[in-house]
């Protein structure tokens, strides 16, 4: 109980809410990094996945590259980038953390976009073409809307992983919520490390819940219930 009291005290101490090492500032640093990473990964991963899914070309290469990228430990990329002289010092460690996390964030989005595009019924595609739609129109008006639930699931997975992993950025000198965790561990201030961990876990949970809602909203109503049971199971399974 003594420990939990100390944690409660940490959260209610005014100085922990102010200045460059206050909760709001470090929370913002985590959010800023995560948003930049997920937005970039959505453009890159979503773009490559959509291209591979639409054309059917280069798909094996794209999916395999994405899978191989997942085997790379983020801590390895982070430490590696953090000691490259021209990268490590840029923007207070932001660049190193950003690049390492983008590599982490692309695969789920790429794979899900690709799977979502491929899941589109061939009949739908043909019907769209038969109606005189161009390739771009087929993509924009048939494939993309139908693949959106999958893409949403991929973005959600990526975002959760990025928020969770952003704690490691503090290890290579970018200040965010992970700073509490790592500096707490280093100085054996277990209360600070614990409190920081609670904050990160809460943020990851919040992202999971909010993006889960968004993903549901993106799913066309007919797919959501009834006949959608199988679909949503597949959407989840493909994450």
């Amino acid at each position: 109980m003594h420990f939990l009291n100390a944690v409660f005290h940490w959260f209610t101490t005014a100085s922990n809410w102010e200045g460059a090492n206050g909760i709001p500032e470090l929370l913002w640093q985590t959010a800023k990094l995560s948003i930049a990473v997920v937005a970039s990964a959505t453009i890159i991963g979503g773009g490559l996945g959509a291209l591979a899914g639409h054309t059917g070309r280069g798909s094996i290469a794209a999916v395999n590259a994405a899978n191989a990228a997942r085997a790379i430990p983020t801590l390895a990329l982070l430490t590696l980038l953090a000691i490259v002289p021209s990268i490590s010092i840029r923007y207070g460690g932001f660049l190193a953390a950003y690049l390492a996390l983008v590599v982490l964030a692309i695969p789920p989005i790429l794979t899900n976009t690709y799977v979502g595009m491929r899941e589109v019924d061939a009949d739908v595609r043909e019907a769209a073409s038969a109606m005189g739609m161009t390739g771009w129109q087929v993509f924009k008006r048939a494939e993309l809307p139908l693949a959106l639930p999958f893409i949403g699931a991929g973005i959600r997975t990526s975002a959760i992983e990025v928020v969770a992993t952003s704690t490691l950025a503090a290890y290579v000198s970018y200040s965010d919520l992970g700073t509490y965790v790592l500096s707490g561990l280093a100085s054996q201030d277990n209360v600070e490390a614990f409190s920081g961990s609670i904050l990160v876990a809460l943020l990851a949970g919040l992202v999971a819940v909010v993006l889960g809602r968004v993903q549901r909203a993106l799913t066309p109503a007919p797919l959501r219930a009834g006949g959608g049971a199988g679909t949503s199971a597949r959407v989840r399974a493909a994450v």
Partner: protein
Amino acid sequence: MLATGRPFFSWSWVQQNWGQIVADLDQHIELTLIAVGIGLVISVPLAVVAWRYRRWRSPVTTATSVLYVIPSLALFVILGPVTGYFTITTAEIALVSYTLLILVRNTLAGLESVPDDAREAARAMGYTPGRSLVRVELPLALPYLFAGIRVATVTVIGLVSVSALIGLGGLGQLFVTGLQGSDDGPFYTPILVGLVLSVVLAAIADLLLVLAERLVVPWSRAGSPGPTRGGRVRTGAAA
């Protein structure tokens, strides 16, 4: 860029530290095997319960999802007051908790994929529900289970590195060594060694599991696309 005295890659460093590298690799494999092993022992019964008794479904999937979302570094620290900071138990609990969602979800999907015909045929042959589970449903669920084990294993191999920040971590130690040793210029060698070994380890583990699946489930061709096989490509490596 590489103006400092250290070479980009030093074979002599590898030779001098070979014993330590092997020990780190050893620990990495050990931590992974324990995590996936315990994960399986917990997940399969959980999935069976959730499958048999529908009202347990939602609590089981929710609980495993929550565990999945908590960042592993945060979990290491949150568990600290109970299981001790910097202990193997703490690291394993965090790693195991991360495998549960993947393994439970895939086992459930596998059990649900069993055709009613097969189940009814077993009953008609006089199988009790328990016997039917062991002889019919679980074997037929194996392809899904294997897909889950593959994802869980590759994910854990990536995650183990993070436990280097609490003093364990197998190959993760090499990343710490590289970062800490970079005061006299970038010290890429240990990080590159750890990175390559980690990726190679993941690839070998995945290959061994594919071969194991072919042996155990000869009727399913590993790698063939299937509805939930999408789960197979789901190898996020969040911290």
